[in-house]
């Protein structure tokens, strides 16, 4: 009697979640995809035909190629910098006494409590032509020319690293917590120096955290909007801001939709293949 019920129970139980996702995520995505298959005319608006012209245009146009290249280059650079900053940060945190650790964890994660827009505007104040950076450079006697990182690749990188480094710290921290501290002791007793233990025993065990942190940071950077919009602006477009402009400035919704779909596909492909690589590498090592 309970047979049918038990078999159906999982579906019933997940139904609210599924409905939620289908309605709020699946449907808009499908509609965006369908929209991207229409062509657009500047006089008459969206046409009712079906075509891949938008995709061909985006993929073939060196203007968009440059934006895509810039976006994934930015994502890669931000990820690398987040690894370089976040991993030592998490390691030092894990070695602190418990009282200092809770204070510093709060300091590290605190920025997550502030809106990205507010944090980015803070950077804009520092980077701008009359900002702190300019004042310092003038005070140090590097000439009167304003130093501005606004609308530059460097500026975007710095601001995004600041926004995303906590994700790397959390992720690495979680995997450091799982390491048996005695495996480090075992390393010392076998004659390894502190540095060797760190390099040969601690870091490899933290690798899953570093890799999953990289995925998070990469994905969030590649699809970031607020920070590139404020710091990069029109002059330093990334894919997300380019799609936004197609929608709202050019009003070419189908082209914007095609850009959005391509960003999604590229992101999924990169992350999925990366994930596969990790799984193959670590499946045997960690549960």
């Amino acid at each position, binding site marked *: 009697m309970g047979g049918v019920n038990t078999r159906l129970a999982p579906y019933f139980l997940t139904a609210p979640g599924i409905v939620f996702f289908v309605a709020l995520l699946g449907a808009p995505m499908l509609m965006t995809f369908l929209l991207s298959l229409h062509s657009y005319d500047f006089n008459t608006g969206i046409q009712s035909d079906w075509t891949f012209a938008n995709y061909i245009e985006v993929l073939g146009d060196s203007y968009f190629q440059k934006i895509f290249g810039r976006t994934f280059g930015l994502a890669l650079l931000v990820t690398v910098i987040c690894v370089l900053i976040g991993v030592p940060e998490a390691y030092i945190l894990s070695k602190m006494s418990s009282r200092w650790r809770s204070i510093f964890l709060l300091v590290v994660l605190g920025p997550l409590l502030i809106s990205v827009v507010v944090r980015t505007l803070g950077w804009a104040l520092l980077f701008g032509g009359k900002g702190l950076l300019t004042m310092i450079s003038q005070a140090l006697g590097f000439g009167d020319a304003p130093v501005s990182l606004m609308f530059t690749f460097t500026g975007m990188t710095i601001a995004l690293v600041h926004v995303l480094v906590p994700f790397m710290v959390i992720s690495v921290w979680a995997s450091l917590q799982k390491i*048996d501290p*005695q*495996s480090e*002791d*075992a*390393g*010392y*007793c*076998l*004659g*390894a*120096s502190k540095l*060797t233990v760190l390099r*040969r*025993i601690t870091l*490899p*065990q933290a*690798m899953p955290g570093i890799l999953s942190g990289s995925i998070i940071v990469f994905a969030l950077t590649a699809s970031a909007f607020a920070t590139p919009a404020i710091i990069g602006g029109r002059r330093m477009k990334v894919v997300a801001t380019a799609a936004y402009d197609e929608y709202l400035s050019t009003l070419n919704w189908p082209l914007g939709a095609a850009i959005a779909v391509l960003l999604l596909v590229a992101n999924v492909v990169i992350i999925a293949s990366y994930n596969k690589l990790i799984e193959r590498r670590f499946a*045997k*090592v*960690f*549960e």
Partner: protein
Amino acid sequence: MSYLNFQALGKQFGDFVAVHDMNLSIDRGEFISFLGPSGCGKTTTLQMIAGLLTPTTGKIFLDGVDITETPANKRGLGIVFQSYALFPHMTVTENVSFGLEMRGIAKTERLERCRDTLAQVRLEQFSDRYPKELSGGQRQRVALARALVIEPPVLLLDEPLSNLDAKLREEMRIELRLLQQDIGVTTILVTHDQEEALSMSDRIVVMQEGEVSQIAAPLELYERPASTFVSHFVGKTNLVQGQVTALNEVGINETRLKVDTGQRAPGMAVQISIRPEKFIMSTEEPGLKVYVETAIFLGASWLYRVNGSLGELFVTQPNTGSARYTKGDTAWLSWQEGSLTLFEEHA
């Protein structure tokens, strides 16, 4: 001449004294066990020997050299941790060869020595597996191989068998002891399992709340425990309260027992300890009359709980193939001279 030597070794964590004033000298090739209840400071002592903890007082000498200040990675001792602490990201061979690599030994020799050591612990065919792919007993043997391959002057084992099931544990005891005798490595085993300590060690150090209670060979420890704590902790025992009534006589309620009382004056409160297996149980007089309350079959032996003029006692008797006593039976207990041990009340 003693090989490993502690002088007034002590460790304090804040106000808490984990190990207090420990003196011990261990000979080359000896197998020593630290035995004691949880939290008595066994691991702390072991970690001080390994160099993972700095002693607050005292000194450690290895082969005449003061190593108290030597860091762990320069001491070169072999240690097997309670959790094994294998490197999960390395294969069995990589785990075992790590210590050799740190000693700058060439790859071919490394592999050869790994193979030999893995053969010693019978793990040759698992050399390419990761720790995750091994059973508990196999992991334990990898940990052992990793500690042995560097040919350490001293092997430190922190409850290495406690994660294994009962049967495997018994097998590993014998295996470990044979291996140790084979190699002749000086070994310190930490355990809270008295059977393990009794069956494997040359000498046992019984610890209680950071202090050494007794250091003795297994048989001596069992037969002549220095205190009620030791007699309780090492093996099972019956403890009864009494009073010296005359020279070599102790009174318990109305019963008089013949015990060596030494110089103790009549009237002194004492405790008598007698091990359950020292009793000879008979269906006939003479002896101490008791009633059987419970009979529990243990396979090789019977455990009886009996009641009589000494109060409640536990008695074990070898299994002779028939149930000789059941609940409610009357029996008479006797014992050989010298089976009783006397402790002053607050020994």
